[in-house]
């Protein structure tokens, strides 16, 4: 048997399949997912879905008609356990599948840090719809939650919980929230907003242990000896790529499954895309692994085209979004390595953007309730341009003139 087997069932899997078909791949396509849902939107899990504002029926990325029309098979509950490229065969909990091409879109899993009490009832991570269901099932009885980690998922969960009337504490190990992904100005703004909503936020705080009673978590103890009451803990300390299959094939490092700009690995039959993939990023000019919907989508499209025999290197400018309370945070580009932050708009009016400059070039824009700057960045950042800090900070300067 020949055909494409795709391991994983989220954004990258869908886009590999759709792009392969779009570019003329005529053999069978089978998505092997260990979940029990069609690929679905994950961002609502920490926001609208948690609050009950987003219903399950609106979560699928595409309806069944799409898979039928494009002749894409999905096998649910199929967790891959081993792959043999010589025999072109993959073993899963739903049986073995033959393939001639393999796409690894296994994504990431929530990072678990070994904290005493981590196995207590009431300690959760959030990655999948099943995780969100488990949290939702117990949320009505929760009075106080401690979120460990001030990254995107931690902050989104904290905001949602605070909006549902739960007392919320966020414990962040580093000196500020979102330290890995944004500059100090945005971090400071977000911290003040959360404080304004009554969220108790402690940065530079390392967690020592979760303490429980009758098997259920009751409080979080920090390294400095402070105790925070909690009948729920959300562990949101990042994600780790699922690289085991690729490691077995010698195609991965600890950083991810190694790919080129078209999602090819060193094995001509094997491709990879999305959160699990590590490779050259055309915009950044260096190898990296991105955890985002945009990257999973664009890298998936490139890999799908390559599977169909067409070179369409991924050259997308990275972008990302996060909704917290009434803040629409949108990011485009990569701010690491910038040498200057310039504000445009009004922080007091809660509608502004931070432009990150490297010499005369904008390398990233982080916007708060200011979507037009984000959209501008998606067009501009990948193109040659030259701008001064004075121009960026001048409200009368027309940024669109740079495009």
């Amino acid at each position, binding site marked *: 048997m020949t055909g494409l087997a795709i391991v994983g069932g989220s954004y990258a899997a869908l886009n590999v399949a759709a792009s392969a078909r779009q570019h003329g791949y005529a053999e069978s396509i089978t998505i092997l997912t260990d979940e029990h849902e069609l690929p679905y939107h994950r961002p609502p899990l920490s926001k609208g879905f948690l609050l009950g504002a987003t219903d399950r029926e609106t979560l*699928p990325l595409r309806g069944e008609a799409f898979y039928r*029309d494009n002749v894409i098979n999905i096998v649910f509950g199929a967790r891959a356990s081993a792959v043999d490229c010589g025999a072109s065969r993959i073993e899963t909990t739903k049986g073995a599948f033959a393939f001639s091409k393999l796409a690894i879109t296994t994504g990431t899993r929530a990072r678990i840090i070994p904290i005493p009490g981590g196995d207590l009832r009431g300690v959760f991570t959030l990655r999948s719809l099943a995780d969100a269901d488990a949290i939702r099932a117990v949320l009505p009885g929760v009075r106080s939650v401690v979120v460990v980690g001030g990254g995107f998922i931690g902050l989104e969960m904290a905001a949602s919980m605070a909006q549902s009337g739960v007392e919320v504490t966020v414990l962040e190990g580093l000196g500020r929230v979102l330290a890995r992904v944004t500059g100090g100005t945005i971090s400071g703004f977000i911290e003040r907003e959360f404080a304004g909503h009554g969220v108790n936020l402690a940065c530079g705080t390392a967690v020592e242990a979760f303490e429980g009673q009758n098997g259920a978590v009751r409080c979080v103890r920090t390294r400095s000896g402070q105790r925070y009451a909690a009948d729920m803990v959300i562990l949101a300390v990042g994600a780790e790529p699922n690289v085991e299959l690729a490691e077995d094939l010698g195609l991965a490092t600890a950083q991810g499954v190694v790919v080129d700009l078209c999602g090819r690995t060193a094995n001509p039959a094997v491709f990879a895309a999305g959160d699990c993939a590590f490779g050259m990023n055309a915009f950044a000019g260096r190898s990296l692994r991105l955890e985002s919907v945009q990257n999973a989508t664009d890298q998936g499209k490139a890999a799908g085209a390559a599977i169909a025999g067409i070179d369409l290197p991924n050259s997308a400018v990275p972008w990302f979004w996060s909704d917290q309370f009434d803040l629409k945070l949108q990011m485009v580009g990569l701010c690491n390595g910038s040498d200057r932050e310039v504000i445009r708009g009004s922080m007091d009016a809660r509608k502004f953007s931070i432009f990150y400059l490297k010499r005369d070039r904008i390398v990233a824009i982080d916007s708060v309730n200011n979507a037009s700057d984000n959209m501008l960045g998606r067009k501009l950042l990948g193109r040659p341009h030259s701008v001064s800090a004075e121009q960026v900070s001048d409200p009368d300067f027309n940024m669109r003139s740079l495009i």
Partner: protein
Amino acid sequence: MPRIIFRDADGGIREVNVDAGRSVMLGATMNGVPGIDADCGGTLSCATCHVYVDEAWADRIPPVDEVENDLLENVACERAANSRLSCQILVTEDLDGITVDIPERQY
């Protein structure tokens, strides 16, 4: 169930039905209509569900709000007076037969 008619850039036509209260975007994604990427799933973050609403219908839907306007400002294909993000058009029985044109690309 109200009908939505999608016309693509090559003149192809797709007619789908969607429950009242759902968005035009969802009508496309659930029925496999190509050309509506809808990366953010309707949370006003991505602007990849851009459509041009047929003139006959343009006045019958609520106007563009501030966030939608901000997103449309630099949308991938040219913005026109009838440009909308299809996630923001909720279908009602009154909109049965609403017709929209899909732009060439969403990026």
